[in-house]
């Protein structure tokens, strides 16, 4: 077993890698913010929303959680144009990630909401808060606080899962690695470098999410 590593291609291909990192970060930034927003809405609808909305949300959540992400991506990118809905590969990738994270985070957040003691709803009502205010201040924030580690993990999973968007020619970090591999035939090195970058990105993302947790839930962290 003797393998001579050759990283000489880095000199020529680092702009490709850099662009790939940029796209991956953009994808997860948009995907995480809008995906969690969608998840909060769905969690509210599924746990406390009007009766007519619940079956629709349940259907959406079950559909997304029980089908592969890659197929959802192909459906959006290759399938929807047949219905006249054309979008670029980046828009398709963003949409797929939002829809995917929306469904998973819905279930995580719903768990947090349903773990809230019944008395808290009544406490909010007794303070003359409207149902919306009760949800916003009394239910949602403590719920999110409870499930924040699980939600952070899910966001990291979605970022790592975003590697498959290279299949629709979105030029993310995996695309960059595949591209370099197909030009230099240095597969080991190309995936070695991209793996290291994904690892660093995932660690950085966890740090960012932990910091965001500190900002959103100051009391919990001080305790």
């Amino acid at each position, binding site marked *: 077993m003797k393998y001579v590593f050759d990283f000489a291609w880095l000199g020529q291909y680092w702009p490709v890698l850099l662009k790939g990192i940029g796209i991956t970060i953009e994808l997860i930034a948009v995907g995480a913010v809008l995906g969690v927003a969608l998840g909060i809405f769905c969690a509210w609808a599924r746990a406390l929303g009007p009766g007519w909305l619940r079956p629709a949300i349940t259907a959406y959540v079950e559909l997304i959680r029980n089908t592969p992400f890659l197929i959802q991506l*192909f459906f959006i*990118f*290759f*399938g929807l*144009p*047949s219905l006249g809905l*054309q979008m670029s*590969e980046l828009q398709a990738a963003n949409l797929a990630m939002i829809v995917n994270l929306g469904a998973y985070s819905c279930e995580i957040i719903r768990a947090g909401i349903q773990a809230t003691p019944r008395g808290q709803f009544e406490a909010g009502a007794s303070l003359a808060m409207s149902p919306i205010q009760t949800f916003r201040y009394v239910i949602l924030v403590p719920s999110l606080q409870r499930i924040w580690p699980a939600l952070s993990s899910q966001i990291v999973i979605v970022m790592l899962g975003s590697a498959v968007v*290279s*299949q*629709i*020619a979105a030029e993310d970090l995996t*695309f960059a690695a*595949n*591209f370099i*591999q*197909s*030009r230099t035939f240095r597969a080991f090195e190309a995936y070695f470098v991209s793996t290291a970058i994904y690892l660093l990105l995932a660690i950085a993302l966890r740090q960012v999410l932990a910091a965001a947790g500190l900002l959103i839930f100051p009391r919990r962290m001080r305790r």
Partner: protein
Amino acid sequence: MKRRQLLAIFGAATLAISPLLTASAALADALTDITTRGVLRVAVPQDFPPFGSVGTDMAPMGYDIDMANLIGEKLGVKTELVPVTSANRIPYLQTNKVDLVISSLGKNAEREAVIDFSAAYAPFFNGIFAPDAVSVSKAEDLADKTIGVTRGAVEDLELTKIAPKNAVIKRYEDNNGTISAFLSGQVDVVATGNVVAAAILAKNPPKRPELKFLIKNSPCYIGLNKAEPALREKVNAIIAEARVDGSLNAISQKWLGADLPADL
């Protein structure tokens, strides 16, 4: 230890005899061999549609199979199809298991060193394909166009060289991705092989990929053993005749959905 020695002796003996065996087989002229035997043995692909594949009735079919049958017919002998893979098709010929290789074989210097080639019998090229409405006739016309291509394929490397700076190249994982992107309108133009374009055309899609210009041409030749001038001349004559009387063009229409290019 003893067994190993024995094996070595056997090996050496086989090696010493084998040139004699092949020499004796090659002593007679291959064309005479075929006519006296009454059977033409042809190596054909089984895993490479539309050149050669197995139909639903388990019978081999394709461009190469039709070509093999055509040559057998013109020689007035029965055609025996021998399925081969792209890796073993030349060894089959060299070891005299077949008389001809009709297996979408391209010509290159390495192969020319070991076998002979007939005239070209089938078009095989990479090109730029787009529907009629898209006007592209040379590399410069690709400016501002979105072109789909399969990443790492020959056409990707060639396209990257010739495409103007402001052409947008979308690289897909495999041919199916490229085809889907074209059919779903994600790209207007694709760079791919004529075989892939034929596979799309065979499905009669609303968007038809028409050839705009060639990127790289590497037509298919019939492979035959070296030092068989009589057989080679005969095969070349059959190809030339088939081109004139239109039977070759009919095969091209049937399997590739396009006329033979004039410069084949």
